[in-house]
């Protein structure tokens, strides 16, 4: 889905070394910007999902300032507040909570805001990791070809042959073995990021590799080669900008997937510590109360996760169409 036709020609003009840094990215982004902006303005779905996603992201980022309580501070919790229904007074403590409390007496609203913060942090970091790894591998495999390509693509095969959740489970297990016990808790979230990120790089690698193979045979790259530009420079300045479109689309959808993957891992018993629950952990806890009548413990975090993932996915959809001029 890379689109060499739009970016190829103007990159072709910039054969001389000096002209590249200023002109190519600047122009590229200007064109993208205007096209994308236009498409955004005319798509109600994009506007709505954009606003919703932004609202959730902002709320999560600002959680420490806007949340009524700090659910990650165990000493501030009162177990007797547990299972308070939304907007009702707790029979023992007399406290009232807008969205009720969970099984530990945590204010649901605060827990969700802080939880979304963790989920987003894990998701964004994991996608960034997958992106960096995937792009690097894809560029090298596509540009160098030969054994580098064979090795990287076979590694990708191995990766694909293992279900991603399985890989994340196993990476989690290894990390637990390697990290000294005293640091496991603080490292848990990073381990999670690495586990999800590592299980997700292949998509980026495949797309970048494909695009790179197409680009590298183009005249402007050949020209850059002829004048002796370093391969690293060629990759970074000529090829990379041309594959960023599809990469961005995968990254957006990957973000939603990573957030869901975090929740799934939590269901399988690995993930962030229960004292600092993510949105996924809250759902895992909440689904235990599906039959017992405490619906709010599951419903609110589930709706929040659904809204967030849906908004991000719809944005990804729109971005895919917006970046593909033939679909316009």
């Amino acid at each position, binding site marked *: 889905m890379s689109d060499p036709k739009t970016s190829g020609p103007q990159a072709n003009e910039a054969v001389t070394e000096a002209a590249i840094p200023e002109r190519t990215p600047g122009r590229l982004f200007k064109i993208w910007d205007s096209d994308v902006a236009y498409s955004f303005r005319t798509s109600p779905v994009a506007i709505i999902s954009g606003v919703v996603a932004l609202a959730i992201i902002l709320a999560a980022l600002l959680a420490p300032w806007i949340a009524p309580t700090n659910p990650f501070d165990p000493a501030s*919790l009162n*177990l007797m507040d547990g299972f308070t229904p939304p907007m009702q007074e707790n029979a023992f403590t007399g406290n009232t909570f807008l969205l009720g409390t969970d099984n530990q007496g945590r204010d649901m609203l605060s827990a969700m805001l802080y939880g979304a913060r963790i989920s987003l942090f894990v998701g964004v970091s994991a996608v960034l990791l997958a992106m960096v790894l995937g792009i690097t591998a894809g560029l090298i495999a596509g540009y160098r070809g030969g054994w580098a390509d064979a090795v990287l693509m076979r590694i990708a095969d191995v990766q694909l042959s293992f279900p991603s959740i399985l890989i994340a489970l196993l990476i989690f297990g290894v990390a637990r073995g390697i990290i000294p016990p*005293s640091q496991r*808790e603080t490292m848990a979230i990073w381990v999670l990021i690495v586990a999800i990120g590592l299980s997700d790089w292949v998509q980026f690698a495949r797309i970048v590799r494909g695009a790179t193979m197409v680009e590298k045979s183009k005249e402007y790259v050949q020209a850059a080669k002829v004048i002796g530009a370093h391969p690293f420079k060629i990759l970074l300045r000529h090829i990379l900008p041309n594959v960023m479109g599809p990469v961005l689309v995968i990254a957006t959808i990957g973000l939603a997937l990573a957030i869901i993957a975090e929740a799934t891992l939590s269901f399988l018993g690995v993930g962030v510590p*229960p004292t600092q629950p993510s949105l996924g952990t809250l759902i895992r806890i909440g689904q*235990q109360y*599906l*039959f*017992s009548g*405490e619906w709010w413990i599951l419903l609110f975090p589930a709706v929040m996760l659904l809204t967030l993932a849906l908004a991000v996915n719809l944005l990804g959809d729109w971005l895919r169409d917006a970046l593909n001029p033939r679909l316009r």
Partner: protein
Amino acid sequence: MKLSAPSLGRFASALSVSAIAIAAFGSAVSAETIRWARVGDALTMDPHSQNEGPTLTVLHHIYETLVRRDIDGSLQPRLATEWYIHPDDPTVWVFKLREGVTFHNGNEFNAEDVVFSFERVRAESSGFRALHTAVTGATAVDDHTVHVQMEGPSPLYVQNLTNFFIIDSDWSRENDVVNPQDFAAGEESYAVRNTNGTGHYQLVSRDPEVQTVMTYYDGHWDEAPQVTDIVYTPIAEAATRVAALLSGEVDMVQDVPVQDIARLEQTDGITIATGPENRNIFFSYDMTSPQLISANVDDNPFSHPEVREAMALALDRDAIRQVVMRGQSQPSAAPLPPFVNGWTEAMHSYDAPDYERASELVRSVYPDGFSVDMHCPNDRYLNDEAICQATVAMLGRAGIDINLVSQTRSLHFPLIENWETDFYLLGWGVPTFDSAYVFNFLVHSRGDGFGAYNGAHYANDDVDAMIESLSTMTDLEARNQVVADIWEQVMEDRVFLNVHNQLLAYAVRDGITVAVHPENQPHMASITIDN
């Protein structure tokens, strides 16, 4: 394992299940099938291989023991009608065996089978070896009397026999299963899937972790039970298990999540039975090492009596009972269920939480408080992770900052065995119904087969000596005094931060009456059905 599995659920009529059973064994007249779901499956059908909850529960239906543990914790006759210490020799146990008992294949049950079973249960590959280390040999005096020779006087040994199943000696020899499964052998033992016991039920089919079907053995010595057919299905997910009961696909759920009890009680057509399990849930901590693995201070905070007292004051057991356990627990100060020998009313009582005093105590040693890791299993006990979380919050109010590490049981328990945790949650059942079992594993200093779960690193020579003396004391009154003395020291030293004894809940469809068994081993032959 070829079976056209008779399905659970009202979707497959219960009739088809019993129809198959009747066709195969052609006896039962008023057939009652019970569809029974539990979180886990039996691991094996070999009666001497795995000493593990669900395995024992299923095996009790097929095989029988010499003595059986009743609902109230007392010992009742089963294959043995009488048992006593030999009047002339305190090191010999005498068992009088029931007459007229036959195995499922028709073989007659006699003393030779018991002697053979004693050999088999003590084999290298037996999972029950540790319970019979005091035995040196068993002999058949006549067809229905067995003498068991002990190393020394062992007045309470019979308490170790409630999960000791009797297997047919001839059948075992014929099928080459003289010893339990040997892991090194590399091949499957015949006894893993085939059975020949004397129990109420015989095995019809078994698909591990999917379904086990049993039917009444009409040659059984006792009166015929109402339940003639059993379909046992493990359902791992709590929500699915409860759903299966709510939708009428199973008749009985053995592991009911505590939060669902209230809803199930209010549901038409469902009844709940609750009762105490023989299992206490408690925290323990390394109180002996000069330094901890995870603490942020130079010495060992748990070595200070003030800190241990503060933790006892900070733990709000009643709040845990009310919110986390929904009332399904008996809070207590000592890790001992009330029906176990050595329990006293005094051990049960605990102080009301006092966070101010707790905080003062902590700060008298560490003005800024301290931090330490706590290890917790998340798939072993009722709401284990939630108990730990609640405790973290309570200790936080006392100035103790806890990092909670909660993980699966196979990662949790080795930490205790290998002394790799400073502070942990553990549940302990007392299958022998005697305090000595607690002391041997949790209180005696580690070594020589003692103290495997003494994660407190507790070591007190006097206490060790008293514990060792217990195993051979024949004067039960004097022995009970020693037990009381040990408990007093242990409680004074605050070796355990006990939370509660957990209650079990079984959910059944209306018309079925079942009592909660303290060992969590319900027996379908004791169930009554009133449609």
